[in-house]
């Protein structure tokens, strides 16, 4: 992620006006948008329904032509066919052929990249495995649930090992496993050096994976920046420790009050995220081999993705995880944050020890104190996971 490099996407004064039959302006879908997606980042395009996210994406792909303004994708106009060989696109709905089965669908898209038969077949199998649809690969897509179709949509977007992935509402219509999986894929691809543009109105998803975001409303850019900068609460500090007795809490409270003149705003047991809990429940069910005609829990990200990307620090961690025989997504998740967590949590603690400006006094006891900072929150979650694990062990023991 070198900011000096040419951005993957750059738009200047991008405007799209939809006209009616008589060529009169009907609606301004995108208005003077200046967008910049840098190489290697996960960029979020946020906004309520009808704010121009999809229109912008369609213009980036040359599916709509801008009324005014300029777009460059990899320094070329978006209609350039060569550019499209480097892009993967998942449209807002999985627009697939109902009469083809999953394998044929991927085969069709693979052929459009003029891939060799062997490479195409190999990739198709790996992608089917990744999205957990190998067992359903010969069923027609018309019989698929929306979520299953979405998974095939994701697989087709990855068939060319794209440098730049455009995901329009990637989690729409997916079950929690699917959502979690898409987020995993985004994170893993990002680690492998891919640039990702993601549009969504599901803020939790964006928050979990994006580096930078732009918020659109009425076709206009309302806010842009690093998600950490935009969301960090510089006026709060959060501790997470092993379970403390009320006495210890009191002692800390007194200590804080005396040494720094600060009050603790809330104390309590952190609750697990519903997503984590849900994933654990499903994992248990799968271990008992419960029948399901739907999508299976998926395999690892295919190795062809990002095979040519330059190695980076985190890749090292991923490859270490990959070396273990077939790791499930959940396992990958468990491993990675923990390894990262050590340093992250140290950083948090360091952060805590730094003198801070005094926060304004608050009285509402329910105000969340968790800093809404992406990296930190991820670190927190792993700590929570670790704590939960310990607690479980203790309970079991």
């Amino acid at each position, binding site marked *: 992620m070198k900011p000096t490099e040419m951005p993957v996407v750059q738009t200047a004064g991008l405007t799209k006006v939809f006209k009616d039959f008589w060529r009169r302006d009907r609606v301004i879908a995108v208005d003077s948008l200046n967008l910049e997606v840098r190489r290697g980042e996960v960029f979020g395009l946020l906004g309520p329904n009808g704010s121009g996210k999809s229109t912008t994406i369609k213009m980036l792909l040359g599916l*709509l032509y801008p009324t005014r303004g300029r777009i460059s994708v990899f320094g070329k106009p978006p209609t350039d066919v060569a550019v499209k060989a480097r892009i993967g696109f998942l449209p807002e709905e999985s627009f697939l052929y109902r009469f*083809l089965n999953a394998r044929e669908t991927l085969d*069709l898209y693979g*052929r459009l990249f003029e891939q060799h038969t062997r490479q195409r077949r190999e990739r198709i199998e790996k992608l089917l495995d990744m999205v957990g649809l190998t067992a359903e690969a010969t069923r027609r897509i018309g019989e698929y649930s929306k979520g299953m179709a979405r998974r095939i949509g994701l697989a087709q977007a990855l068939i060319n090992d794209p440098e730049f992935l*455009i995901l329009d509402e990637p989690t729409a219509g997916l079950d929690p496993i699917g959502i979690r999986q898409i987020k995993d894929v985004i994170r893993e691809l990002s680690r492998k050096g891919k640039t990702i543009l993601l549009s969504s109105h599901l803020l939790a998803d964006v928050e979990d994976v994006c580096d930078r975001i732009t918020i659109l409303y009425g076709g206009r850019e309302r806010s842009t920046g690093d998600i950490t900068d935009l969301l960090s609460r510089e006026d709060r500090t959060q501790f997470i420790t092993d379970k403390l007795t009320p006495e210890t809490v009191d002692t800390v409270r007194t200590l804080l009050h005396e040494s720094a003149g600060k009050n603790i705003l809330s104390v309590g047991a952190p609750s697990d995220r519903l997503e984590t809990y849900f994933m654990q429940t499903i994992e248990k069910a799968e271990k008992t081999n419960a029948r399901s005609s739907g999508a299976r829990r998926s395999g690892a990200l295919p190795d062809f993705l990002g095979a040519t990307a330059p190695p980076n620090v985190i890749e090292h961690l991923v490859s270490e995880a990959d070396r273990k025989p077939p790791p499930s997504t959940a396992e990958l998740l468990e491993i990675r944050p923990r390894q990262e967590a050590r340093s992250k949590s140290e950083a948090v603690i360091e952060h805590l020890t730094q003198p801070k400006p005094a926060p304004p006094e608050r009285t509402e006891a329910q105000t969340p104190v968790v800093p809404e900072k992406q990296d930190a929150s991820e670190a927190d979650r792993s700590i929570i996971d670790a704590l939960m694990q310990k607690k479980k062990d203790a309970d079991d023991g």
Partner: protein
Amino acid sequence: MGRIWAIARQTIAESLRMKIALVFIAFILVLVVGLPFALRKEDSVSSAVQTFLSFSIGGVEFFLSLLAIFLSRSLSEEVAGGQILTLMAKPIPRWQFVVGKWLGIVVLVGALLGTSGAAIYGTARWMATRPPRDEFDQLRLRDEILTARHAVPITPIDFSETAERLFNERLESGAYEDVIEKLDKKKEKARLRKDAEQRYRTLFPLESRVFDFENVRCDRSPDRTIQLRYKAEVWAYPMDEVLRAEWFVGNPDLGTPLYQLQRRDVINRYHSLFVPANAVAPDRSLRAQLYNRNPFEGEPQYGNTISFTSFGDIEVLFTVGTFGGNLARQLTMVMCKLVLLAAFAVMTVCVFSFPVACLVSFAFLALATMSGFLNDSLIHFEDEGVYWAFKKFAELLYTVAFFVIPDFSKYDGTSMLVNGRNVTLRWVLTAISNLGLGTIGIGLAACLMFQRREVAETSF
């Protein structure tokens, strides 16, 4: 090419799995296989085969034309259904996508046409094995239907010399004396020439006439036949519907046998005389002489005058090819039309939604097929009073429309095929080049239109 073929494959798979093509295949099957059983048994085999060929070829062409139009639905469906978004985000140039769609339609329609052609051939051959009604039926089937014959018209005779001679005679005899100052010599000679020609086509009782043919390039072996085909009128009092006369075919001066054929024919209908092919002279000329005399013993001589409406009413036919080859050439012309129609249908879906595109394509097909008929009806349209303006407007419309729309009837060899006439290679090549050029033009327009289209915009 890989990308174009990927799109074509996809289009074919869609048409088969969405059962559009299957419906048409069923139609064609019923037509080709069922039709022979639906024909009346008491008909002669030759006319049954003719009816079968005419209907099956026409029907197959019609159904495949509809299929070509319906298959173009694939593209508009992709635009309406959003699949186009995923496709156009892939590195395939727009023109390759359009060509791929067209190719898919052409391959499928071509495969069906080929299969139907084979089925038509097989069925016709099978029908020909039925017991013939009589010897004539069998001969007709072999030499007039399941064959490919080339026709030679009579060698044109120059009557200007006769006209010149007549003119001079009349001038000398003083026939023009009263009008000599106003006499338009050219016009008068033309009139005389026409008279002479008409006279030549007319045989008074007991008169005989020689008709010569050149370039009869047939197999001259005596076991082969050539056909003398003619249609004559008879002027008689009392009215008579039967022509009684004698043909002498061959030229003993050039060393050929002379064949004598006694005829009793219904007038105003075509009749074919089968003559052994060795009647043709080594220099490929053929002489036929008609003698206006009742050759039948014991019948009275009628005072009939035989006349031919035009020299086109007499021709010589001989086999130059096989029925199979002829059928293949005719189907090639049908294919050329289908290829062009497919391009047009794809062009319309590049611009319009399917219902609109479908109507436009049907209109195109109807106009292209009925072009000749429309032209005729326009010529015969009343142009008095209020109709005048309408006729002018229709003519203008016709001129503009048929500048763009090809005349499909120009490339229809069905009637030739059914009558065992050779569908010439030259004709087929003309169809390929003309309709091919049209296809390229339409294809370019389609690519251009699709290039400009915003595929994510579905409000068309």
